[in-house]
């Protein structure tokens, strides 16, 4: 990132800061964020953990939030039965259900609060894009879930409506589950058609003892969009966090996940599927820090790169001294489906204690010739056979989506994206 871009970033902030809502984040915190960010500089592909990210769209970006405007909104996926839906446009709350039993959903822009009091970036090893969000966020949703919550789930739909030429969007969410609480959250990021939006979201997850969160994230932004995201999670004793990301859209996408398993017995199951085509670049960095005994992480990644696309997953597991009895597993697989496509898989393990079980496997390859011939020998057309095998490759992750309606929506979306012929839809 050039110093010119940093100067521009600071200038845009100074010009815009008087109108940024105090009720979301106070001015002093915003200023501190921009100073910290300028001191560190924005990420660069010269850095090891950003090597595979397409940062060009970020470098050219207008950083200040897009001004409020009337937009024609895209058609949204059908509502999920039993889920309460909340819609955000350019990061700002538009509509959603009133309070749910045991769940409080507050949006800060119109709340008259004195700005969010919680901490986002302090313990993040990689906080720069979260700082950028903190400086410019125009709204934030805080969701508190009590043990007695009976809601099936909530759905957060973030629509990136403004093009990047008019400014960026900064979705911001805090999800806190109290002791013993359970919830399913679906978080969708959608764009309008060929939209060129710049999205930089920040999500904070806090799970108290024995809380259980199923969190499904679907990234389906516009074809020319850039989607950046920082997710930070803190897991207390015996908390369980199932996090699943499906990333198929945007020209450039990068998700940074940092989970701290700070209570004994805490468990993280992170699954991600990415399907990249054309010139897309889909990158994910997931770090799991084991800070207590008997903590578990399971990372599963399945990525397909076609055409000239680049799909990357960098999974880092750090087992600290006090985390005896840790069990971590990584299964990372990539499928190269284009002569100029690229898959980058990087499993990393840092272990500072004994008595742990850590396994990892990473492999990237082409479609299996034996499987392909088997399908052809049954009369299946070659292009359909290829789609089928790609489909089967992603199923490892997709089959973990528990809500049947959501899984079906995602499967239909993938089928439609992979094959214009309706062939794959019969699979469902």
């Amino acid at each position, binding site marked *: 990132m050039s110093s010119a871009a940093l100067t521009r970033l600071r200038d845009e902030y100074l010009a815009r800061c008087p109108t940024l809502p105090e009720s979301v984040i106070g001015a002093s915190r915003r200023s501190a964020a921009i100073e910290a960010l300028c001191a560190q500089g924005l990420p660069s592909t010269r850095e090891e953990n950003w090597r595979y990210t397409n940062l060009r769209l970020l470098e050219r970006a207008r950083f200040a939030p897009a001004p409020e405007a009337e937009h024609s909104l895209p058609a949204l996926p059908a509502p999920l039965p039993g889920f309460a839906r909340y819609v955000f446009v350019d990061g700002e709350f538009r509509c959603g259900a009133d309070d749910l039993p045991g769940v409080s959903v507050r949006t800060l822009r119109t709340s008259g609060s004195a700005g969010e009091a919680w901490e986002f970036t302090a313990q993040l090893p990689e906080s720069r894009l979260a700082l950028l969000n903190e400086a410019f966020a125009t709204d934030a949703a805080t969701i508190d879930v009590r043990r007695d919550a009976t809601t099936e789930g909530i759905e957060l739909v973030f629509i990136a409506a403004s093009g990047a030429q008019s400014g960026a969007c900064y979705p911001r969410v805090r999800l806190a589950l109290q002791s013993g609480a359970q919830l399913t959250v679906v978080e969708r990021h959608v764009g309008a058609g060929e939209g060129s939006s710049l999205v930089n979201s920040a999500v904070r997850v806090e799970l108290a003892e024995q809380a259980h969160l199923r969190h499904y994230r679907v990234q389906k932004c516009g074809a020319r969009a850039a989607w950046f995201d920082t997710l930070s999670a803190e897991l207390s004793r015996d908390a369980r966090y199932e996090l699943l990301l499906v990333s198929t859209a945007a020209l450039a996408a990068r998700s940074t996940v940092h989970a701290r398993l700070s209570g004994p017995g805490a468990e993280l199951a992170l699954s991600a599927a990415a399907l990249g085509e054309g010139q897309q670049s889909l990158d994910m960095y997931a770090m799991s820090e084991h800070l207590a005994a008997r903590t578990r992480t399971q990372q599963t990644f399945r990525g397909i790169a076609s055409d000239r696309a680049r799909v990357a997953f960098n999974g880092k597991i750090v087992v600290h001294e006090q985390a005896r009895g840790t069990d971590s597993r990584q299964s990372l697989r990539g499928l190269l489906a284009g002569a100029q496509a690229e898959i980058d898989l990087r499993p990393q393990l840092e272990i500072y204690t004994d008595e742990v079980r850590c396994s990892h496997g990473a492999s990237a390859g082409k479609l299996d010739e034996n499987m392909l*011939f088997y399908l*052809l*020998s*049954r*009369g*299946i057309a070659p292009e359909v056979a290829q789609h089928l*095998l790609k489909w089967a490759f992603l199923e*490892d992750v997709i089959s973990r989506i528990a809500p049947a309606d959501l899984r079906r929506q995602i499967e239909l979306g993938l089928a439609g994206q992979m094959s214009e012929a309706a062939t794959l839809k*019969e699979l469902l």
Partner: protein
Amino acid sequence: MLTIKNLHAAVDGKEILKGLDLEVPAGEVHAVMGPNGSGKSTLAHVLAGRPGYTITSGTVTFNGRDLLALSPEERAREGVFLGFQYPVEIPGVNNVYLLKAAVNAARKHRGLPEVDAFEFLTLVREKMRLMRMDESMLSRGVNEGFSGGEKKRNEILQMLVLEPALAVLDETDSGLDIDALKVVANGVNTLRSPHRSQVLVTHYQRLLEHIVPDRVHVLVKGRIVRSGDRTLALELEQRGYDWLLGEAA
């Protein structure tokens, strides 16, 4: 039905089939036997169009058409079926989907509408009972977690549903216990008809106790060195292949 003349085929520059001649008339079941490495599986794969084999000379005519000019999927749609020696596992693609896609590909090729879903399932269930397969296998991935015997039964199930004009079964008997062998043989016998032909590629005679072939051919070093009726198979069982090795020279 099938006429192979002077077929030469090579893998990685090494010639495996060296002038193979074979004629299988409609309605007949032929067994191709031979020692390990004689080219049996190569013959099966060349007929199905597997990539990696170079045909250096010779012709294969199937129902009057040049089979070698067709792609693997076209051969399948024309009615050629290969029963694999080692059926592939494809997790994530379920069995019933594959069956239906295969049936519809052949129907489309013949200008027929897609199969009715209900009738299709009824038919598949009936064939599964014949193959003594559990219905739960339908919704599982193709051959996923199947035992060796289950995979072979699944091959025959596919054959029964697809009703090919020419079935080439590559060592379908290998790895089967006697009960499974009977079930498989029963499946093959069910398909016998004046309009269909079957080629059983096998190393041992025991499959032929349950499926009586019209002709038996012995393949040695890439050529058919002897043909006869089913008594030839019994003779091979007693005498082994050694006495025929000289004839390949």
